[in-house]
């Protein structure tokens, strides 16, 4: 933006000079899971108030690379475009974030005129910027991230909850399962299971789930375990959650790098959750020791 002092120059449209004419986009592409990745450049006209989603939409409509070759549109995931569905996480200028809420004008403050897009590196690439994040949901199942109600019939209202408890829980419930925290976590490693020749989809999926089951849960799932352990009804199966948290790939994997909380687009207090889970795990282990 132009400061007031420079606006004294007459008859000049000051914005014009500084606004780039085009956006150059470097995309790390990959045609399919076991293929090599490669860089491709695109150039599209600049418009004010664009986000990375509208940049990708323009690229799809043009379907040509910067050198004028016809190329298939870049594949990527998106849905809500307002940072609440969690679909469009990718590495934008090297940082894990949501394409919808990444505004071009802000990105240009990091790298004027250029944007670099890469798929998340901790998840297997499906194609281009689209990755398989099934592991996020596998972790939620492992920590039993749900309230174990008897059934969906009418039993009156849920437990009374104080405003303080609600305000404590609410931020944790806004997790959009985007995977940014897992991407940033040095303890969270990529697991890529490749379908074998002749293997059925069901068998492949089962093998994938088993591989995930042994690995680090990730910050989001730890936070969800804390959320449900703090709910009056949810706490009724806290033992099972503690088992998952203290088992293989559990909370002990966390190296306290605190990257997760730094990249979370929803600013969820993930490290607070991890600290709480850590304390609870210690108490639980001692209790279990004496209960033997």
């Amino acid at each position, binding site marked *: 933006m132009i400061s007031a002092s420079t606006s004294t120059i007459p008859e000049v449209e000051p914005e014009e000079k500084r606004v780039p004419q085009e956006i150059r986009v470097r995309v790390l592409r990959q045609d*399919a899971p076991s293929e090599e990745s490669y860089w491709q450049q695109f150039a599209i006209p600049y*418009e004010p*108030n*664009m*986000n990375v*989603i*509208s940049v990708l*939409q323009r690229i*799809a*409509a043009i*379907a040509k690379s910067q050198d004028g070759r*016809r*190329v*298939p*549109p870049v*594949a990527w*995931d*998106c*849905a*809500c*475009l*307002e940072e*609440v*569905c*969690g*679909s469009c996480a990718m590495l934008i200028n090297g940082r894990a974030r949501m394409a919808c*809420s990444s*505004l071009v004008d802000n990105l240009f403050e990091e790298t004027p005129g250029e944007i670099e897009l890469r798929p998340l590196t901790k998840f297997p690439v*499906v194609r281009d910027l*689209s990755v398989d*994040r099934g592991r996020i*949901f596998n972790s*939620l*199942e492992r920590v039993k991230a*749900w*309230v*174990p*109600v008897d*059934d*969906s019939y*009418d*039993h*009156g*209202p*849920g437990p*009374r*909850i*104080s*405003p303080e*408890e*609600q*305000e404590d*829980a*609410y931020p944790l*419930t*806004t997790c*959009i399962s985007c995977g940014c925290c897992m991407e940033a976590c040095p303890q969270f490693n990529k697991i890529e299971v490749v379908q074998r020749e002749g293997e059925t989809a069901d068998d492949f999926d089962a093998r994938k789930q088993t591989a995930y089951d042994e690995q680090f849960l990730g910050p989001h799932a730890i936070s969800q375990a804390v959320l*449900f352990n703090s709910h009056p*009804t*949810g706490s009724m199966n806290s033992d099972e959650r503690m088992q998952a948290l203290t088992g293989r790939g559990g909370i002990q994997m966390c190296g306290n790098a605190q990257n997760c909380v730094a990249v979370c687009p929803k600013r969820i207090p993930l490290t607070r959750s991890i600290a709480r889970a850590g304390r609870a795990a210690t108490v639980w282990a001692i209790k279990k020791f004496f209960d033997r």
Partner: protein
Amino acid sequence: MTQSRVLVIGGGLAGLSATMRLAELGVHVDLVSLVPVKRSHSVCAQGGINSVNAVTRQQGDNEYKHLDDTVYGGDFLQHQPPVKEMADWAPRIIDLMDRLGVPFNRTPEGFRDQRRFGGTLYKRTSFAGATTGQQLLYSLDEQVRRWEAEGRVKKWEFWDFLEPVMDDDGRCIGAVCQDMVTMKFKAFSADAVILASGGCGLLYGRSTMSMICTGSAVSRAYKAGVKYGNAEFIQVHPTAVPGADKLRLMSESARGEGGRVWVPRKAQDARDPKDIPVAERYYFLEERYPEYGNLVPRDIATREIFDICTTDGLSVDKDRLCVYLDLTHIPRETLDRKLGGILEIYEKFQGVDPREAPMKIFPAVHYSMGGLWVDYEKSETGGLLEGSPRNQQTNITGLYAIGECDYQYHGANRLGANSLLSCIFSGLFCASGVIAGAKKNTRDETSPDFVSAVKRQEERHQAILSRPVGDSNPYDIHRQLGDIMTRTATVVRRNEQLSQAYDEVCQLENVWEHCSLSDTGNWTNQNVIFTKSVGDMFPLAKLILKGALLRDECRGAHYKPDFSMPGIAATEPAEQKAEAERWCDRFEENTRKWLKSTIGVHGDDGHPVITYEDIDTTLIPPRPRLYGLVGGEVIEQVWKERSEKATEPVTVG
């Protein structure tokens, strides 16, 4: 009997609540969704969910009044028994969601807090910050994951529904879907199929809807013979934030918590809005609608905002249409606690803090009241007969529709915070009837019905992939379609424009037939999936335009100035009375002619065939919708006298 198997298409609130209840009742569910179900469009719902509650009940509220507000707000275009049943279930549904762990905002004593929403005078709306849809969806997603862990539910995420499959008797026995990663086709055999695929806002180009709300599943069912009801009734939400890629919703809850809509009295007043004194601000909704103020029903708020910018020329900005939505008089702490989610969206995408400066907003396409026609069975008490297979069933036996993709609950205009309710209600409620009507289907994927359906879809797919390279691409066609629809079939509708738009859409459909793909591969080809969904927007677009063209009246969201009924112009009491009598005559005549559901059937020539069906208004007789109308009190008086006369007991003598 062996375990029955139901196929659910769509994993938003409706699809998930149906899945949860079916699984609980012992049914195996195959759940198909374009995205991981946790990313469904229901997450975008912000403001809350309506029900009569302990507090409003003591203020004179009851389920009948919730029903009345819903049908009056909807301009009487919905069958009343399903709405009654929904209003009756509402308190139980909120209780259930509360038990599932939805973090509803609390009062200091620990009860659920409620706020007021449009079209009612009671605080009926329970909410979880300003992300209520997200929270409700997550709770159901969690329950379904629980059933998935037990093997009762199998999810098919990143799968596209292509067509329902019927047997020789016309009964739905499954569907053909496509894996959007491997691009492989698969037939799903089922004892019943439930469509819960949401709205069709994307055919307007940009709207408040998610990129997955293409309406393609609904269009494919319509093309396969399912009737479509009230297509022309599209809700345009009064307050959205325009963006290049999307028009982002700014929830009605902003007004429910005290937000005020205004424009400077002086056109394009260049002053900072905070420097404009109150006397020079035009709070036009409050002035024109003293009773409801900023919380008039959505269709009315939308027209007023549209009008103040276009007709009155009072848009805040010169180069784009917008009005102020002002929250700056509300304490920061309250805003963060009750509206944090939506204020962050505004701040992130606009770079302006709405706690400090008024937001700039304008109406945007938001919801389709119309949808697939579904049946119901009425109970003796005027609600629905639970467990009847007719409930939520389309005209194809064994094929059901629930949630936004059915036409049943919102009439000509939906009240805020009723959509989440109708989605969860229809999902939960339909389950017992689906099971009662389910017929064990012994055909597997190798049976001829399925094999030929898969082949048909593979051929369509291949035909699109092998089109010669041409000039037009699906993204441009989609943008053009959106422009036509937004220009002609939103807030103000005129017959000459609608009929011209219909021709343009038909021409554009021809262009689509020849548009070429930029990706002809067979792995995660989003290009071809999108192209197919654009092609399937045309049948629905034509339905909307045709329905709007034929309906020569104003009702709810459907507004044709050429057929509007202005208020009372006279000032003399006697003349006023006479004018009100004439007004009521015309209203009665109009009711006889147009209080009917528009029913569209896909014709063999690709054009919709439109007929009309009577509406069950036995619980609440239709009455004029008089929000803010000039002379409304005189009309109301005349109407009251007429109704009393009509219901006077006949003396037998």
